[in-house]
């Protein structure tokens, strides 16, 4: 087709767009690595429930992010060399990566809704698996102990969860301790400040806020990183691919 000014302009736009796309893809890869590393160590809550696609989406995004980077570099090459075959290869491969990245975004945000849409799933899991035997039980117990200690909270919506419902913890340890001792404030040497006061539920000696806010904010943070940033990258790639198809038609 015409080798005019519009054609050159389109080529330049494509090359610049691909440079930006390469950077965006690499950033997506890095962000997805951050999510997969799970610095807040909350994976067991999603893993035991079976709704762990926030992390599956993160793994997919690591690969698609890096693949976007590689394909965009290839796309610079293909556009500069004005080769039809290379552009076609570029288009088909980019579409495949695009579809995988879409899957990652959609599944991450859907599973986030399952997990932390409201506090029921987390609460049920806590009551069922805290202090239970088995692999799931030990994972959940360790995770909750860590959260209660670091975030200074007790229960899902509050300590009342432990006395409102029956639980594995209550069946194992009886009703002497209404809630785990991790709900109690501790001194710097990890000794409980006042066990009896904690058992009675005195505000000053135990944590009274619920842990769900923290859990929900962590999972939401992971999800927004994968799904919304992935969405932004995909919208940019959409425009880039439309321009690349027009360029291909002009070649």
């Amino acid at each position: 087709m015409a080798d005019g000014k519009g054609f050159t302009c389109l080529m330049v736009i494509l090359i610049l767009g691909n440079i930006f796309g390469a950077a965006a893809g690499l950033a997506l890869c890095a962000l997805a690595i951050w999510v997969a590393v799970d610095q807040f160590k909350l994976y067991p809550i999603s893993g035991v429930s079976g709704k762990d696609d926030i992390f599956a989406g993160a793994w997919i995004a690591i690969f698609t992010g890096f693949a976007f980077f590689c394909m965009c570099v290839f796309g610079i090459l293909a556009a500069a060399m004005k080769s039809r075959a290379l552009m076609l290869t570029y288009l088909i491969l980019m579409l495949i990566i695009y579809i995988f990245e879409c899957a990652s975004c959609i599944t991450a945000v859907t599973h986030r809704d399952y997990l932390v849409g409201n506090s029921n799933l987390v609460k049920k899991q806590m009551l069922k698996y805290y202090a239970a035997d088995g692999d799931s039980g030990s994972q959940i117990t360790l995770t909750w102990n860590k959260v209660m200690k670091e975030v200074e909270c007790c229960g899902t919506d509050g300590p009342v969860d432990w006395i409102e419902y029956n639980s594995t913890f209550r069946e194992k340890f009886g009703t002497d301790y209404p809630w785990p001792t991790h709900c109690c404030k501790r001194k710097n040497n990890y000794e409980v400040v006042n066990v009896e006061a904690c058992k009675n539920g005195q505000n000053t000696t135990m944590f009274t806020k619920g842990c769900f806010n923290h859990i929900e904010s962590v999972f939401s943070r992971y999800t927004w990183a994968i799904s919304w940033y992935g969405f932004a990258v995909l919208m940019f790639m959409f425009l880039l691919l439309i321009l690349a198809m027009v360029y291909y038609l002009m070649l």
Partner: protein
Amino acid sequence: MHPLWILQQSTSVKDSFVSTPWAGPWLSGPQELTWSENQTRQHLVPDSRMSRSILVIPALPFHIMLRSHESHLFSTAMRTMFIFFGMLFTLSNAEFQVSLLKESDGVVTGRFADSLLLSLPPCALATQSVTLEYNNTDTNESMLPCRFRRDIISTIENNGQFTTSRNLGYQVTNLTTGSTYRLQYVVGAEKSNILEVSTRQVKDPNQIDSGLPARSGAMVVITVILSVSMFILLVALIVTVAHSLGGD
């Protein structure tokens, strides 16, 4: 003349605690409690908190005069004095309040599955022995437990210089889950109100519905827009390839 008495005599010679005028008829004007000591006039303005002390312990009247600046009160004083004495006897047998401890009292909750946290009788009855009567309204068994000091919930605050110990309430233990109880303190001749409260019914966690609560807006937006864009790209690629093949 308005009857007036000293409620409590402290060891200090200077301090005396005096009852305040009964709220109704005397609150209309400014009151002034005066007493003469070395020809100096002392003033006292009663506030609403002091009215509680009337309810608890009547003491012998002393000769301290209450003079009011409102002269018309003198004419009604005799009339109201009889009412006042009449109310006095009912007030001395008045009920004090017992209630469950709440969050504002410094505990997470007053209702457990097998115990209840009750407020203590007022401080004025401190040295007397108290019995707690409660019965289970379902089974109608009555209990008069011995009072053990360890069932008192107290907080101890230690800031390095001194330790303060404060009693928050009393824990009634060994109750059955999910049943209603009627509780009442009895202190000598005085009784508290009857508190009707039930212990918590422990629910089954399997009843919690942990299905998908609702689809959030983010999920709908992302899914719809991405699906549409995927579709458009696929169609556009097919059209491009077809066009270029057809064009060749």
